[in-house]
């Protein structure tokens, strides 16, 4: 299993240069059956990452560019009257796919955002009293610009919570950037990329994730973290039970990517910034959430 995941990671790395950590996190998120939010400035390779992952995993891929005039029907689909058949016919929207890339999700109006988020939760679409099930596996990779940018509708906390992970990509290091500049950009390679696994295999991997052993000692540590976030004055509100569950699932996926059959505290520490970062609201606005998480990790005894 480790071989497969390693192959996925190295294949993706051929396109996204020098970002193995982010790739691993994104993959862990997918293995844990969660939706991924990539937050960064334009041009950092958010879209490329999403696209590459879909390609490598052998999944159907759809992309929607979110704008302020995008309507729910543009994402979900619409029923149109068919004059020949004399009835309404449903035209599925781009959401009927394995991987939906919701580009710049915070540019859309809250109405459209929430329509998407509802589907993310339920994995089905109901239009005109008819329920359409989405293909499996299904997950959303959303990208967003930092909310300080002009013309955005920031996702409220309740909706951020729908995303299992939020990651940032950051600037590449010098060597990777040089390599990137030497090539023609990722797009060209992306077209040539062959999938490593298919949808079925991905589902097997996802199922295997559940079998990664979580010991009592680890749950002690996990609970200590949850307790700390709830008791510390550092945070406005602590982590929810759902967040706790997410932490566990992601740690399991991370342990699997490391080729282990059990979760260790290091796994939790690795995924904690990505899983908890967007869920914790700091009390002081001066320190960033990354600092807060680091502080949190330092304060909880393994």
């Amino acid at each position, binding site marked *: 299993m480790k071989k497969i995941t390693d192959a996925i990671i190295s294949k993706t790395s051929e396109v996204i240069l020098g970002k193995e950590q982010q790739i691993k996190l994104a993959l862990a998120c997918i293995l844990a059956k969660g939706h991924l939010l990539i937050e960064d400035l334009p041009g950092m390779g958010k879209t490329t990452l999403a696209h590459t992952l879909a390609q490598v995993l052998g999944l159907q891929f759809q992309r929607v560019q979110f704008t302020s005039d995008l309507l729910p029907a543009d994402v979900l689909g619409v029923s149109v009257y068919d004059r020949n058949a004399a009835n309404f016919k449903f035209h599925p929207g781009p959401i009927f796919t394995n991987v939906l890339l919701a580009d710049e999700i915070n540019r859309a109006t809250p109405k459209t955002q929430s329509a998407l988020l509802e589907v993310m939760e339920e994995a089905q679409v109901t239009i005109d009293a008819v329920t359409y099930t989405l293909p499996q596996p299904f997950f959303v990779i959303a990208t967003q610009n930092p909310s300080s940018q002009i013309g955005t509708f920031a996702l409220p906390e309740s909706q951020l919570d729908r995303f299992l992970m939020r990651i940032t990509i950051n600037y590449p290091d010098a060597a990777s950037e040089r390599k990137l500049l030497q090539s023609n950009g990722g797009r060209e390679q992306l077209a040539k990329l062959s999938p490593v696994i298919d949808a079925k295999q991905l589902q097997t991997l996802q199922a295997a994730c559940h079998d990664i052993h979580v*010991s009592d*000692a680890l749950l002690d540590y996990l609970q200590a973290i949850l307790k700390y976030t709830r008791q510390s004055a550092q945070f406005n509100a602590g982590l929810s039970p759902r967040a706790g569950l997410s932490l566990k699932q992601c740690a399991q996926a991370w342990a699997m990517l490391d080729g282990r*059959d059990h979760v*260790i*505290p*290091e796994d939790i*520490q690795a995924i904690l910034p990505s899983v908890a970062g967007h869920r914790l609201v700091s009390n002081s606005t001066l320190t960033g959430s990354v600092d807060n998480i680091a502080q949190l990790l*330092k304060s909880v*005894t*393994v």
Partner: protein
Amino acid sequence: MASQTEAQINISKQAIIWLLLSLSITFTLYAFNLENWVPACFVVFAIWRYLIEKNNWAYPKLWLRFPLTIAGGIAVLVTYGSLFGRDASVGLLAVMISMKLLETRTKRDFVVMVVLSYFLTVNILLFTQAIWVFLAVLLALIGLTACLISVSHQTKQTTISPQIWKVQAKLAGKLLLQATPIMLVLFVLFPRIPGPIWGIPQDAYSGMTGLSDSMEPGNISQLSLSSKIAFRVEFKSAIPANNQLYWRGPVLWHQEGRRWQMTSDNIPLPTETIETSGEATDYTITLEPHNRNWLLMLDLPDIASSTLPAEAHIKHDMQVLSKEPIRTRIRYQGHSYLHYTLGAKLSEHERTLALQLLEDENPKTRQLAATWVSENKSPTAIVEAALRMFREQTFVYTLAPPRLGKEPVDDFLFNTKRGFCEHYASSFVYLMRAAGVPARIVTGYQGGEINPNGNYLIVRQSDAHAWAEVWIQDQGWVRVDPTSAVSPDRIEFGIGTALPDSNLLPLLSRQDYPVLKNLYMNWDAVNNGWNQWVLGYDQDKQLALLKKLINKDIAWEDIGLILVTTMIALMLFVSYLLLRNNGGVVLNPTNKIYQQFLKKLSKAGVTKLRHEGAIDFGNRAAKALPNQAIEILEISALYSSMQYAKHQASSNITNAPNQQTLSLLKQLVKNLKIK
């Protein structure tokens, strides 16, 4: 709401049983010390409460509880005549606690009950301080603590697993055990106040037995029925022969009918020195409280060389008295001479006292004395004649003498001829006085029983004895024991051999049942140690011990300071112990070994940060100590997998690593050497 009440029911079910069990122990102990109806009252209410619990009966309403409470208070008032004093107030507390059972159902009630019961249980020690009582009290305290534990552990389980009892009892025992250091510090250092405890009321001293300041035929034989211990003696040198062990108590001068009394006349001490010969005997007496002033000493005491309680003094007739009645067990050191000449000169005052007799009594006795005088016998010959009479006629030594008539001495000497030591001593002295020989009765104890386990002498109330002293020109006061003329065994071997089995002597003074006796002797040795080191730990001992420890004289005010300092130090130490172990978390065996590993690395300068995972730390340490990198990584990986991986079912209860893995880790850590 429903689940809350359910939880409440479950608190009480277990807690009530703990409470009832512990209180049963307490009330069993009180059954020996309080009026019978008080423990009976507990039994009734305890059964009632148990049935409420078992059958889900309704708790009694206020209209029933209120009159019950009033009635309980009145009953105590009527029984004890007051609500104050030891017996009455403890009785009241006991009755009220019994009734409180009927309204004990919430958590708060239980906590109140347990605290009250702690108090009641400990109060038993105001009545008796024997070891077995102490042990029983301890047992009750464990039960009460377990009750507190079960009250605090609210579960919603409807069934009580049988294991939980054991777990809770164990935890309670552990808690008490943890309190032991504090108990010891308090015991050793808590300032002791000399004299009796302030608050102990007078009625605490009733029921103490011992010699009285007067003697009538029957007194001492009554006392002889008691196997209670009068005192214990440890000798510095060999224990003298039994017939030399005369423990001097009250000296009786004044005769009034059948009654002999001490004299209240203030006679100065003899001026001439007492001549002694032979080696002195040194010994330490642990005297049981008897609520009188006498300090018993081996005949003849030399109080100048003895270490007696403060303000003890000796009277002209060589009886040693303390200032206050002896109400707590005391210890003192005696210095006595077995061979002596006492009172070479007899003052007029003493001679008058020593010849005093009531007129017109016991004509036959006077007649007999008169014949001896008319025969011109010397005082020595008169003494001889009297002893010969006891020896040769059919006098019988018995614990159950017949009642004596109007002229007691006549009746005894010429009629019944059956008596106990007080009969012989008193009639002998009477006879002497009638014959003009100054004489007096000395009461005290004779003999004692050697406990081979501990090599000390036990003197019981059953060893109480009375003998005579006659004054003879040039010899002074000479001890004459008429009992020895009748029953030499009494003096040679003790009371057990002197009396036939049919007599009502206490079981333990008899000679049969050697196994029982041996058992008893062992037990008494334990008791003796208990008395000396636990109950007898008084101010003197405390100061002596501290002096030994600190090598400096200290006042008891300083002890308070030491006490507080020690307690603070002790608590700091305990906090350190708790904090060191990750805030009181109990480490499992795997973690314990891992801690050793961390200690080793820490010494080498690589300390694990508390938020660091084992693997991360292993990697860091391996980098810092490249020579041991392999071992460090191996241990870290093994530990991590032991701690977090799934294990083969090695033990049936928990998912714990098996013994082999554990010993492997141990071995690896042991072999890790860092230069």
